[in-house]
Structures are given as C-alpha cells and as structure tokens.
C-alpha cells in the first residue's frame, strides 16, 4: 500500500487497532452490564428489593404453582417441529421441576420440563418458566425481567 513495508504495517496497526478496539469496547461494555444482570432486575422491579428468603413450602405454595404453569408461545414453537401431528393445548406430565434462588436474587425462578406426547425423540421436553416472589407466590412481570437476567 505504501512504498515501504514499515509504513504499510504502521498504517494497518493504527487503523485496524482503532476499529477492532472500538468493537472490544462495545464487547466490554455489555460484558460489564452482564455482571450486574440481577441488579438490573432489582432496578426494573422495585418490589423485589427485599432480603433473601428461605425456600417457601413445597406443599402449600410451590406445588400448585408448578402444576399451573404452562409453556409460553416461544417454547411451544421451539418444539412444534419435533412432534408428529399438532401439539396438545395443555401439557400434563412433568419430567422435572426446579426452583432456583441466590442471595443476589431473592426472587424464586421456577422451571418445569414437560414430556411432549408424540415426540419423534422420546427425550424431547418442552420448558415452562415463571419467576415468583417467594413471600407471596405472586408472579413477577416477565417483560421487566427480560431487560436484566432475561437479556444476558
């Protein structure tokens, strides 16, 4: 590009360094945000700024909620191509139930994996999620979780 190799390499080092450095800055910025994903949740949902809670009663609170949560449209679409025939309107046979909480994240995330009838692969599962306030069992707004832990 220039008569001297040294000039060419200096140009390359300058401009590609600047361009790729800008990309790295963007990457590091979003990486820094991702460290604070739970704190962004707390910011977005002020009602969830409370101390970590003990796990609520399975029989009184969690079991009825696990049984009531169904996969949303996105999760249904993810398995729609993996079955012979249409998907059932309601999934009844859970394969796994999970509840997750941390000291940074006093809310309780619930995961339910359902068996999928007529699945081409018998290990296919469809997932349902809900995040609740462990003190009351009330569901948290999904859209506001999506800008924090749901995004990262």
């Amino acid at each position: 590009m220039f008569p001297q190799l040294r000039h060419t390499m200096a140009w390359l080092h300058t401009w590609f360094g600047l361009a790729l450095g800008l990309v790295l800055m963007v990457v590091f910025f979003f990486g820094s945000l991702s460290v604070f994903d739970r704190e962004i949740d707390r910011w977005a949902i002020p009602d969830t700024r409370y101390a970590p809670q003990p796990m609520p009663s399975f029989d009184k609170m969690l079991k009825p909620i696990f049984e009531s949560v169904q996969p949303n449209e996105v999760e249904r679409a993810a398995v729609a191509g993996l079955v012979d025939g249409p998907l059932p309107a309601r999934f009844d046979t859970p394969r796994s139930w999970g509840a997750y909480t941390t000291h940074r994240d006093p809310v309780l995330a619930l995961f339910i994996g359902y068996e999928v009838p007529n699945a081409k692969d018998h290990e296919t599962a469809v997932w349902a999620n809900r995040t609740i306030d462990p003190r009351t069992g009330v569901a948290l707004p999904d859209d506001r979780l999506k800008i924090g832990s749901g995004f990262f």
Partner: protein
Amino acid sequence: MNSSTLTRSHIAWRTAVAVLGGYVFTWGIVAAGVTMLFGAGMAFHDAEHLFYIVGILAFLGAFLAAFAARDLRRTALTLVGGGAALSAGAWLLQQQLV
C-alpha cells in the same frame, strides 16, 4: 504517503481482499491439508485440529500480505484463485478417498 493508494475505494478493496480473500485462501489451505493428511493415514480429527492451527497462521500471513503487496489485483487473484484451486483439489481428492 502516496495519495493514489489512499483513496477510500482503494482502502475498501484492500480490506475486502485481505479479509475475504484471506478467508477463501485459508479455507483452501485447511481443506487441502486436512484431506491430504487424512489420505496419508492421520485420524480425521487430528488432521482437522492441526490444520485449524495452521489455518490461523495462514490467515495472518494472507492478511498481512494483502496489505504489503504492491499489486492488489494480483494479490486478490492469488488469494481467491489459490483458495478456490486448493478447495477444488481437496474436493477431488475427497472423491477418491470416500
């Protein structure tokens, strides 16, 4: 500084040849290398890993050469043509092997 080589379009072409031409050339090197080593009896995944390592050096060399070269047209032809020739050769050899 030579003003004739520092036009916007020249820089865009240089960058395109370096990035895309380097990619095509590296593709050819990796395809040909993996095929030849597999043909010579090396396990496929060993040959694949080895030429991924060679590939990153090949891309670096092609990328720097594209900026260092005086004649951009010839460089582009070497990288794209060479990459295509190597890929075609690898494809022909694969037909013999499988």
